[in-house]
């Protein structure tokens, strides 16, 4: 984040070439820059000479500055070189005695000119090299980000195919055994089979809904379409949907006294709340009702879901949102399917909102906390 911001600032200050700049640049542009700088510097030097006595040294400074600019804003070495040679010749022609004539034999002057030529050439080489390096750095960073994205995509795909296959196997197996053994099965067994199918189907639905939410996040910018929404509405809607799936569960909801409005995609934040609540409901084995509390702070709104269950091992806390710890022995052993992609989708959504999410143990269970930044509609 910080790096990106810095780069933005650099780009604005023109210290780093942005990619578009480089692409749009044509040789014509370079020529224009070259001419403009060269003529501009000559004009300045001429003006300077008419004002100040004995200005020779300063005039070379102007040209060196111009050389720097040309090397910086044109591509390749060629314009820098050209500028260096031309400016040395022009200084000789215009600003050293005899004026308006070339004279390379004056005492000491050849040394000055050679030194200036060297300075100009070195400047132009160094500046161009610097530019090249900056561009390389940016490309490397972009490649790194691309690789990370690719890794995330691969992880997600693996998790998804696993998560889809598991309930599908259950549905197909149960319905096949019903169709094949309908006559031998007792009513209770039949009911059991249908219930299993319903469970698996619900689980699958939950997954698909999660995946669908991800399509609401812009692929290019990783941003979401935010509107000003009331926290009340999102929380109440999430609770209603959660209860529809777990009718016997209870959640203690604490909302701020007054109305709190936050910029967000309400469907996505609802999904985050549902995922966290479901995760707690299914995995935590909470001994008391779950607690959902919303708190308004100066610059952010904080949502916290607290359970009184078995907690999460400390070493898993850090990676629980990355989908890495999903299929650990622990979750396989307690007979539940892994939370699958639910929590990593929570992280994706919250990050896309510019917020942060974390899980921590509070002694008697786990608290999942995420925050959304408060911003105004204009932003």
């Amino acid at each position, binding site marked *: 984040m910080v790096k990106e911001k810095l780069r933005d600032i650099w780009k604005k200050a023109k210290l780093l070439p942005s990619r578009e700049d480089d692409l749009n640049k044509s040789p014509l542009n370079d020529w224009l820059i070259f001419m403009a700088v060269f003529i501009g510097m000559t004009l300045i030097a001429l003006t300077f000479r008419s004002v100040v006595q004995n200005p020779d040294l300063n005039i070379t400074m102007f040209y060196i500055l111009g050389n720097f600019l040309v090397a910086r804003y044109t591509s390749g070495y060629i314009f820098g070189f050209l500028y260096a040679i031309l400016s040395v010749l022009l200084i000789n022609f215009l600003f050293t005695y005899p004026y308006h004539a070339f004279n390379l034999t004056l005492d000491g002057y050849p040394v000055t000119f050679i030194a200036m030529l060297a300075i100009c050439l070195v400047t132009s080489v160094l500046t161009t090299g610097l530019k090249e390096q900056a561009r390389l750095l940016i490309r490397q960073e972009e490649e790194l980000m691309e690789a990370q994205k690719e890794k995330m995509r691969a992880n997600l795909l693996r998790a998804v195919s696993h998560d889809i296959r598991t309930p599908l196997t259950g549905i197909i197996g149960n319905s096949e055994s019903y169709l094949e053994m309908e006559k031998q099965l007792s009513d209770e067994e039949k009911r059991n089979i249908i219930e299993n199918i319903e469970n698996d189907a619900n689980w699958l*639905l939950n997954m698909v*809904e999660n995946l*669908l*939410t991800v399509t*609401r996040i812009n692929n290019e910018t990783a941003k979401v379409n935010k509107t*000003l*929404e*009331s926290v*009340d*509405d*999102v*929380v*109440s*809607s999430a*609770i*209603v949907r959660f209860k529809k799936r777990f009718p016997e569960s209870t*959640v203690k*909801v*604490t*909302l701020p006294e*007054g*109305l709190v*409005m936050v910029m967000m995609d*309400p*469907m996505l934040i*609802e999904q985050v709340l549902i995922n966290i609540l479901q995760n707690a409901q299914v995995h935590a084995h909470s001994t008391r009702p779950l607690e*959902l509390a*919303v708190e308004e702070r100066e610059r952010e709104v904080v949502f916290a879901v607290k359970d009184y269950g078995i907690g999460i091992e400390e070493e898993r806390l850090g990676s629980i949102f990355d989908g890495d710890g999903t299929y650990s022995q622990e979750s396989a052993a307690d007979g539940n399917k892994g939370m699958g992609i639910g929590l990593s989708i929570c992280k994706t959504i919250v990050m896309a909102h510019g917020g942060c999410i974390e899980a921590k143990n509070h002694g008697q269970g786990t608290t999942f906390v995420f925050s959304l930044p408060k911003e105004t509609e204009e932003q």
Partner: protein
Amino acid sequence: MTQKLTVLIIEDEHTICDFMAKTLNAHDYKTITAHTGREGLAYLTSSLPDLVLLDLGLPDMDGIEIIKETRQWSSIPIIVISARNQEKEKVGALDIGADDYITKPFGTYELMARIRTAIRHSNKILDDHVNNNRPYSAGGLVVDFEKRRVTVNDKEVHLTRVEYKIVSLLAKNSGKVITYDTIINEVWGPYADDNNRILRVNMANIRRKIEETPGEPKYIFTELGVGYRMLEDENLS
């Protein structure tokens, strides 16, 4: 024997169509099924059903077009079947005249409740004066339209004028989703600010006055991105 109500189901997915037809038949409705938009429109004009269940994603035409065409000549209740995550589509359908929507996947209970509500509201147009002034009552909440009084478990709740307007609008349309825009139009008039912040503020206050736990509402439910829905009136369901 009472006349059975006829429901036209326009849905291209055969399994869903079958499931809805079976459920409705079991609840004493007569059903007609159409798998394409054209077929649906033909049945609409030829057999004049009492209610239409309409899937928006049809193979031959946009479901929205069917609503538009139907609304030119009929106020027959239309319930749109839509997927979650498509709140813009839902609002669009409601704006051009659909009565309500149901989100896929839905259970039989939800389906029957929506149908009952829609049919009840369509009857209300006929005997408006009878129903309109009867108090709303559900789960301990009573809205007396004549006395302009709201009580929860027999305790009077003091609402501001605007808050009362919102509550009575939702109560008169109980069980049905009312879009944000409709509420704003009805309460603040057509020239109100488009920004629905003022509605959210009032809703937050209403919830804190009538709901026991505002985070877990009993009476007024949020349909995210669409609007609000009030618990169905007990006397009418």
